[in-house]
């Protein structure tokens, strides 16, 4: 009788240990999935953040504010304007204004 009680106790403790082990395994699996998801989201955010980077030709006058850069590019010939077009292509554009008289003058507000 005593032996049966001891063996029953052994079995109960083993069942408890096994359940604890399974829950820890599940916990690890969930942690792994969560970490994987978070890192994927973070990488996606970083990749999107780097989609557009401020590009301003050297001949342009730059003014910095908290989140924006204002580029004023004056008296551009065809070659300079070609460089300014890269600003329009590569930067995160907020506003711009391009005027042509004899030469081209432009102002663009881009995100930092």
């Amino acid at each position, binding site marked *: 009788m005593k032996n049966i009680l001891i063996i029953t106790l052994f079995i109960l403790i083993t069942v408890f240990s096994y359940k604890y082990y399974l829950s820890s395994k599940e916990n690890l699996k969930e942690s792994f999935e969560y970490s994987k998801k978070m890192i994927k989201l973070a990488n996606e955010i970083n990749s999107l953040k780097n989609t557009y980077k401020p590009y301003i030709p050297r001949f342009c006058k730059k003014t910095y504010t908290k989140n924006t850069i204002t580029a004023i590019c004056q008296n551009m010939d065809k070659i300079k304007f070609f460089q300014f077009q890269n600003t*329009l292509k590569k930067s995160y554009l907020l506003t711009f204004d391009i005027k042509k008289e004899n030469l081209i003058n432009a102002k663009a507000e881009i995100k930092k």
Partner: protein
Amino acid sequence: MKKILYTKDFNEKIKEPVNVILSPEFYWIKKINIPIKSLKDAKKLAKSSFNLKGDFFYDAFKLKDKFFAVAIPKKLNLKIDKKYIKSIRIAQIEFFDFECIKVNENYYLKKIDDLIFFFPTPSKNCIPLKEALEKIKLSNKTFSQKINKTLLVYAGIIFILLNSALLIKAYSNNLEAKKLSLKTENFLKKHNLPPTSFQLNSILNDLKTKVKKQEKIKKDLEFFSKTPLKKEEYYQRLSFDSKNYYVKIHTSKNLDFYFKKHFKILSSNFSKNTYKAKLK
């Protein structure tokens, strides 16, 4: 409860609980002649008193100020259903008070120098087994539990090993999960990102919208660059206020037909070779 002397020739069919007394054929016994004081010391000496091959259970006991060592095989293979065996004792202890017992016509239990042996030769003054069994009062010294105990010890060792392995693995899993969580937290901190997936999703959706809007602006600019203008025609002004485009083009034709392919024309005007429009 019935008491039986279990000999090698035992062939009785047992169908009720019995107290088994093993005949000397089933165990090895030795009188410990070394001067020892306690039973504890005798038990320590029990195993070294014999030089036996096989799986034996060793023990010691005291009878009338004398110590005895006993070795009983762990596997007895008694021809009695286990459920009917209530206890296992040995003839040495139970029949110690008798000098000679007649087991049957051919065999006798005889005490020689305090040790009980199984003999085929008859002797005088032997009492019949039945009478001896009736007379004896069973001792407290049983061996069945101790023989079972070895099994319990093995089960215990397996139990401890199994549970230790499970608990160590569980602990290592929990530790690994914590490390993983810390690693993720540090990764997010390094990139100045919030710690919850809800916040990250919100940032991601916001960024996706912004990138989509920028992609549209780039496509719009491409569309402007493909405006069908002649050599002497040119853009005088192109501006964007984050919502709408304003265009002023020196041209000989109204360009509504072209811009309406891509934009919604909010207002437009064509006069004196100049086309002006507000586009969305």
